[in-house]
């Protein structure tokens, strides 16, 4: 991907898609949530805006359709519901896939146009479908147009008025024919094609292109900009706009114009625009009578009688009469199953009065799209873009001032703009004159002097006759050059890099490993100091080494902390997938579930976060599958029909704690026991001995699953034992608590980071061992006489708490070292929720290590968390007290 703008767009779009998806879910739960709809709308809007910078028309179109739909929701014209949310989520998913594709290949897949069209059509169908319902009061926007609009949506411009020039080119018979089609619900399309000024240079023949559109009814070609003097004409610039009327459906038009899609607009034409009545004038009471009767039928909605009246009068009126022709149109209009009342009324009036007043369209139709005179967008296409733009800017100031009237606050910026424009064009004389006008305006407290001065500049002295004009040909190509890099720039990377850096994870991991090695290597220095003192008897040298060690130690720790920060990710990384997942699963299972997230900002090491995804997913699925009841069951149990799952994260000291709470049926220890016996996980006697809590813990035993039927969610052959294994592998703990009928809480506690472990080295039975620092509460020396025997077990009292004592050497099945009368060195540890004192031979220093798990034949040995290297090269075994005790 060479385009830095695209590289910036991709992560932005992904983030916005995520925001939109979670906002939609919020909206589904609470359709009146204004914050959510605004959030979603803005996110989608921003994607649309930015995507317009790239060659991804299909993506822009689909997002545009979604935005339109959301706009309706935002303005309360459309009610959001689950199927709408489904459609929108699907569309956003599709956009997400395209973003992936853009990242891989910098282009959309070949089928994108088709897919976008299909999905956008679906979205717009909802738009059309509900659009009419609440606005039934608008008579002219009747069902005629709603039908083609729904079936054949126009992404750019929905309904167009027909330009008179085009209508004039349509033979009378073709007019009536088009009218018949339009009334019958078959859209007649107006294609407007504004080819680029430079289109001849890329091999486009615009006339040939527009002629490819099938079923053409009429074609009009007009100048985009008024033709200037002949000597100024540049025959190599295309200054043409094409308007084509066609009976072809939209996909065929798009297919024919597929290379020019960004330069065309397609709109369906309202039937009333085709009405063209000619003929001789006539008069007589018969017409008045008809008008009265017909109006009454129309008002009562009695279309059949109206049709009869029309046909009766037609049979007696002369075919050359103007009014008779009005009847012809009226008859066609009435052919439709649901005639457009506004149109019919206008035609009835025409036949009655001998005059056709164009139907006042209820919502005034949008002005013709391409190039209304002061639209700034069309300006740069023309050769003298700069002059045109200047005109347009000045005209805008004129208009704005005219509307605002005298307002000193407004005048200031207009003054700056006008002055700057003239300065930029090098028209110093005009500038002085305008400045004088502004002075006068301030004095007179009226905008009149400025308005007239502006008008004079705009009309009187044509801007392109000034001395600035010769500079123009040079200016334009330069501007193009400057702008060109937008499409495929390489240079501005330096500018981006200054702000944030996107780094491959592998590089961070490498850095992490290197720092780990550094931390371990620095541990060699204290040994070196000791050797300097003991072997070489250089106390001085030893002290210097120790000083250096202190510096390196501090730096290494800071470095480690810094790199840890880089690796920290918020829990939201994994939490964010759950709203969508829970919603989809709940719908599949026919359950109603409210998911709440708490503490998403809690951060933990990337490794932990990444490893946490699957276990968490499993717990949540399990809860959905087995824990939460169906709405009926819940009602029967006197609970609210909607169940609740809470995902909660928080930091506790050096660990991150994640809880999954549900208010479902809870775990029934009786059922668990029975199931465990049936599956042969435990025997009958063992089952009887278990406490309820211990029975609940059975769900973590391999091969355990109580689900009566295997659903497609949790029953995939993976039991909760996998959760336990994964979490313990990360150095974490899992616990479950449950109350029957009230719910279940699963709690995962994981270390914030797992790369470096701080340990304390202890001596026992003549060897050195490591004990993870996070298990050690404190170290005490206990006088022999304070060690008491309770039930044959050694204990001592520490601050009024009885702490059981264990000898590490015995736990390791090693011979006791006779210690005589010296005080016992006791390591007070917190293991499995209780305090234990470990009697060891001696304490040694603390140390940061990278644990290497036991490998090969040693993997089976319990009680050891892993090994590490000491500074002098010896291997240190690090104990796993949880297993050992």
């Amino acid at each position: 991907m060479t385009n830095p703008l695209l590289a910036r767009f991709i992560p932005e779009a992904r983030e916005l898609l995520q925001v939109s998806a979670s906002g939609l879910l919020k909206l589904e739960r609470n359709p009146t949530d204004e914050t959510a709809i605004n959030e979603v709308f803005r996110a989608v809007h921003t994607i649309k805006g930015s995507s317009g910078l790239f060659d991804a028309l299909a993506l822009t179109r689909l997002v545009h359709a979604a935005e339109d739909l959301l706009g309706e929701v935002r303005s309360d014209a459309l009610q959001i519901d689950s199927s709408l949310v489904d459609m929108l989520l699907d569309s956003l998913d599709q956009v997400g896939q395209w973003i992936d594709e853009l990242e891989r290949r910098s282009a959309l897949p070949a089928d994108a146009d088709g897919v976008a069209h299909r999905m956008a059509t679906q979205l717009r169908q909802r738009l059309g479908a509900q659009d009419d319902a609440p606005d039934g009061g608008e008579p002219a926007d009747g069902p005629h147009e709603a039908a083609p609009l729904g079936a054949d949506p126009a992404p750019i411009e929905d309904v167009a008025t027909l330009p008179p020039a085009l209508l004039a080119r349509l033979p009378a018979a073709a007019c009536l024919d088009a009218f018949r089609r339009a009334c019958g619900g078959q859209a007649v399309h107006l294609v407007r094609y504004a080819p680029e000024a430079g289109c001849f240079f890329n091999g486009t023949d615009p006339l040939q292109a527009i002629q490819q559109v099938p079923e053409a009814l009429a074609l009009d070609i007009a100048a985009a900009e008024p033709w200037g003097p002949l000597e100024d004409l540049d025959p190599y610039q295309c200054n043409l706009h094409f308007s084509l009327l066609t009976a072809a459906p939209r996909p065929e038009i798009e297919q024919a114009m597929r290379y020019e899609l960004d330069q065309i607009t397609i709109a369906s034409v309202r039937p009333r625009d085709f009405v063209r009545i000619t003929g001789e004038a006539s008069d007589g009471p018969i017409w008045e009578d008809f008008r009265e009767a017909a109006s009454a039928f129309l008002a009562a909605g009695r279309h059949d009688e109206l049709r009869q009246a029309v046909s009766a009068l037609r049979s007696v009126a002369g075919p050359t009469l103007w009014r008779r022709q009005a009847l012809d149109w009226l008859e066609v209009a009435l052919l439709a199953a649901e005639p457009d009342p506004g149109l019919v009324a206008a035609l009835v009036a025409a036949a009655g009065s001998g005059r056709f007043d164009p139907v006042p369209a209820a919502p005034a139709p949008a002005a013709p799209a391409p190039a209304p005179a002061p639209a700034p967008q069309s300006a740069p296409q023309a050769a003298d873009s700069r002059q045109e733009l200047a005109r347009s800017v000045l005209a805008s100031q004129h208009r704005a001032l005219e509307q605002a009237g005298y307002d000193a606050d407004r005048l200031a910026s207009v003054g700056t703009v006008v002055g700057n424009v003239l300065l930029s064009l090098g028209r110093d004389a005009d500038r002085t004159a305008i400045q004088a006008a502004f002075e006068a305006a301030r004095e007179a407290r009226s905008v009149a002097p400025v308005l007239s001065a502006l008008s004079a500049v705009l009309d009187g002295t044509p801007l392109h006759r000034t001395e600035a004009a010769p500079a123009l040909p040079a200016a334009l190509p330069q501007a193009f050059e400057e702008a060109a890099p937008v499409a495929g720039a390489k240079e501005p990377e330096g500018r981006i890099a200054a702000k944030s850096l996107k780094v491959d994870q592998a590089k961070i991991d490498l850095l992490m490993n290197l720092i780990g090695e550094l931390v371990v290597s620095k541990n060699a220095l204290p040994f070196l100091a000791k050797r300097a003192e003991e072997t070489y008897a250089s106390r001085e040298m030893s002290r210097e080494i120790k000083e250096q060690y202190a510096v390196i130690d501090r730096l290494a720790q800071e470095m480690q902390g810094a790199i840890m920060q880089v690796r920290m990710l918020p829990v939201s990384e994994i939490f964010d997938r759950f709203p969508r997942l829970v919603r989809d699963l709940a719908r599949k299972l026919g359950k109603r579930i409210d998911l709440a997230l708490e503490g998403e900002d809690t951060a933990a090491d990337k490794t932990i976060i990444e490893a946490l995804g699957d276990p968490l997913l499993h717990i949540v699925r399990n809860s959905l599958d087995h824990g939460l009841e169906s709405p009926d069951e819940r009602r029967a149990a006197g609970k609210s029909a909607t169940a609740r799952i809470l995902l909660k994260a928080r930091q506790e000291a050096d660990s991150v704690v994640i809880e999954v709470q549900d208010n479902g049926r809870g775990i029934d220890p009786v059922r668990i026991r029975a199931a465990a016996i049936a599956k042969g996980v435990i025997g009958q006697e063992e089952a009887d001995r278990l406490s309820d809590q211990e029975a609940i813990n059975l769900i973590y035993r391999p091969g355990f699953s109580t689900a009566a039927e295997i659903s497609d969610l949790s029953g995939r052959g993976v039991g909760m034992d996998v959760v336990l294994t994964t979490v313990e592998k990360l150095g974490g703990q899992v616990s479950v608590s449950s109350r029957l009928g009230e719910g279940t809480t699963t709690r995962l506690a994981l270390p914030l980071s797992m790369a470096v472990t701080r340990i304390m080295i202890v001596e026992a039975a003549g060897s050195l061992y490591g004990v993870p620092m996070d298990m050690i509460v404190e170290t005490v020396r206990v006088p022999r006489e304070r060690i008491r025997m309770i039930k044959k077990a050694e204990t001592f009292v520490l601050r009024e708490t009885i702490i059981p004592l264990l000898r590490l050497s015995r736990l390791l099945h090693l011979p006791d070292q006779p210690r005589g009368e010296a005080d016992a060195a006791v390591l007070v540890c917190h293991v499995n929720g209780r305090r234990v004192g470990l009697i060891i031979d001696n304490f040694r220093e603390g140390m940061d290590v990278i644990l290497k798990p036991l490998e090969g034949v040693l993997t089976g040995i319990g009680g050891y968390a892993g090994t590490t290297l000491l500074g002098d090269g010896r291997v240190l075994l690090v104990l796993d007290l949880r297993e050992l005790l």
Partner: protein
Amino acid sequence: MSGKRILVVEDGITMRMFYQDVLGRAGFTVEEAANGVEGLEKALLGGYDLMIVDINMPKMDGYELVSRIRREPSLQAIPVVTISTEAQDADASRAYAVGANFYIVKPADPVLLVETARLLTGAQP
């Protein structure tokens, strides 16, 4: 180099980069704000020759921002261009009504953008 300073107020990060790129190359010094509130704060620090304001933004939208700018005595003389994806006349009229000096439809043509910036700041090409 024109040396003119432009404040771009736009919530889309890609669009901001686009402005940086296009206007930066044309010799303008481009500074950014990600929403209306930030835009107003930066604008009040002063020194800008032009503001380019997106309409649809969180916290404070473009209309609101422009109308506040026009109420600030120190900012009344600064030219403001509003940019929006909406091509409807009503949107442009609203922008002019609150005090914008020009209205551009997004995605803006780079040439148009540069030329507009030059004209409104009085910079020479």
